[in-house]
């Protein structure tokens, strides 16, 4: 695993590697950064997806702590350490497992600053990964960011490429608020340009990886790749799509989103999570509330189907959000 202080960073790095490098840099920069999670230390393999590989060897097992299978205890310990000056990074192996830690996340991490009248704060980062499409089935694939986005006091972040992952995870760790950093298992090992060691991406700022004039595609995480693919395809037909990568899902960058849609006058919100009551609903509503009279038509929404994640590839594919869905929504709006 390469780490920032290595002479020259590789031209291309994997998403998982970028997360590893961001943690390495944060730990090198600030002795108060510690990691906790199941099997994250090198003795235990450096994480089931090797995202923390090499870190315990480099920083010691006092700071990179493998834990029992106890998500409540993991998040709780991170909350407690954060209250007294640590910047813990807790790994919840898969996002479905936050369901056993929601009390610590929602009733405590998110609220202690407020309930204490600002006397304490919880500069905690929870890293977790998830994503469908590889046959992990109903309990290992859910995208649950909508829950966390609904919780005042939490920031929710998801990167779509290695460089952003590096810059966003570093910012998340250094942020004075509790941040949920959502990684994407299926794209852990896909590569992208390596960031400069000092590359930082501020929280709360969306990016516009592709400019366009006919429609705005607002998305995050794996949705960005899908939107790019569709934008490419439609460019051939002279349809110009602007792609917005939210990067921070909550609180999200309304300014960038509204500026884009004010220009294109049309928008489709895209995410992998179940469409019903997903984050796309909030983004769509905000656009309608601010730009209703300027819109060519209603903001479209693309998400996955109303069902648990199916195991069998055939069903999983039919259930999952797709480039076809995005294209259909775009055409519906521009027809």
């Amino acid at each position: 695993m390469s780490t920032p202080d290595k002479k020259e960073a590789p031209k291309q790095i994997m998403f998982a590697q970028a997360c590893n490098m961001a943690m390495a840099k944060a730990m090198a920069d600030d002795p108060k950064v510690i990691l906790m999670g199941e099997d994250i230390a090198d003795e235990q393999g450096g994480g089931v997806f090797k995202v923390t590989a090499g870190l315990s060897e480099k920083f010691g097992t006092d700071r990179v702590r493998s834990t029992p299978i106890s998500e409540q205890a993991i998040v709780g310990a991170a909350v407690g350490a954060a209250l007294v000056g640590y910047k813990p990074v807790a790994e919840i192996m898969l996002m479905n497992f936050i369901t056993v830690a929601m009390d610590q996340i929602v009733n405590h991490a998110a609220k202690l600053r407020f309930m204490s009248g600002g006397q304490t704060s919880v500069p905690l980062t929870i890293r977790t990964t998830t994503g469908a499409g590889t046959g992990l089935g109903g309990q290992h694939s859910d995208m649950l960011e909508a829950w966390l986005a609904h919780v005042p006091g939490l920031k929710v972040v998801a990167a779509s490429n290695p460089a952003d992952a590096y810059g966003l995870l570093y910012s998340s760790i250094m942020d004075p608020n509790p941040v949920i950093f959502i990684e994407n298992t299926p794209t852990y090992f896909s590569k992208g340009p390596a960031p400069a060691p000092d590359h930082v991406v501020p929280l709360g700022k969306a990016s516009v990886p592709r400019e366009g004039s006919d429609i705005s595609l607002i998305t995050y995480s794996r949705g960005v790749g899908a939107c790019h693919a569709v934008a490419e395809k439609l460019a051939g037909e002279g349809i110009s799509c602007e792609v917005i990568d939210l990067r921070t899902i909550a609180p999200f960058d309304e300014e960038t989103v509204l500026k884009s849609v004010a220009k294109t006058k049309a928008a489709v919100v895209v995410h992998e999570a179940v469409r019903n009551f997903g984050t796309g609903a909030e983004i769509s509503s905000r656009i309608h509330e601010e730009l209703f009279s300027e819109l060519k038509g209603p903001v479209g929404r693309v998400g996955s189907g109303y069902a648990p994640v199916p195991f069998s590839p055939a069903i999983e594919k039919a259930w999952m959000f797709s480039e076809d869905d995005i294209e259909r929504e775009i055409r519906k709006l521009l027809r």
Partner: protein
Amino acid sequence: MADKDVLIDIFTRADLIMQSDIRFRKMIGSGQLQIVYYPVRGQEVVSSAMMAAINQEDYLVTIYRGLHDQLAKGIPSKDLWAEFAGKVTGTCKGKGGPMHITHPKSGVMVTTGIVGSGIPIANGLALASQLDKDGKVTVCCFGDGASNIGAFHEGLNMAQVWKLPVIFLCQNNLYSEHTPMAFATSSETIKQRGEGLGMRSVRVNGNDASEMYAAAKEAVEYARAGKGPTLIEAMTFRFHGHLLGDTSHYIPKEEMEQAIKDDPMPILRQQLLDLQVSEADIAAIEAKNTAIIDEAAQFALDSDYPSGDEYRIDVLDVEIAA
């Protein structure tokens, strides 16, 4: 028997707690305060003896029924009363209220309303102390009923595996809400559960100042020596039900009568007299506590409520736009 000055210290804290509890119930009863209140009358000695064994810098994590722990730990009465009353002068500017009293200056880091949830957080505070080698201990208070929830188990296991400097003080008042311990608890004692988890565990009469203090001291030394956590099951009782208004109908008459006979406060007071502390000296302590409460209660009543806009502050590090 603990030293005279230790017992005086414990009595001074415990009497402040007892008088505060009585005053809160009086003011709520008379409508001067409108809050949900969890009485602590009967559990004064447990926390007073525990907190007498630690320092101000040491950490405390407690629960909704936490007035006794918070006062024993040393939160200034004015700040505490103002928070109970929801005033801007309160520990938490009125945002947290009685169930979330927080005062880092006194080491009171978290008060939670979720049963058992303080335990994992206490581990985090203790972990920080272990890493910083600052010699602090963390005391985590909870009830007997909390020993049935998952966070208790996960928290004790992690604390033991990591040998954290934390003391789990289970204040066993024999009831969780209206449920007697035996009805919902598979083991005869909570101590036994700590042992099942391989943790140093003791069961003491928490209402006996000397016995409780000795157990607390031992656990504190054990923790400071880096040997790890201790579970203290402190037997006690609550005289005024789960929350104010609860008639304790579910407590057998004989049990209540016996508990009242064993009321720790008159017993501790008598112990002081037996140790030749003069009635006058004791009365002076009580009068001083009364004065503290008079001032704090008045301060709470006189203080202003926070402005509505406060809800946009302290959600994140930056103020939320209206």
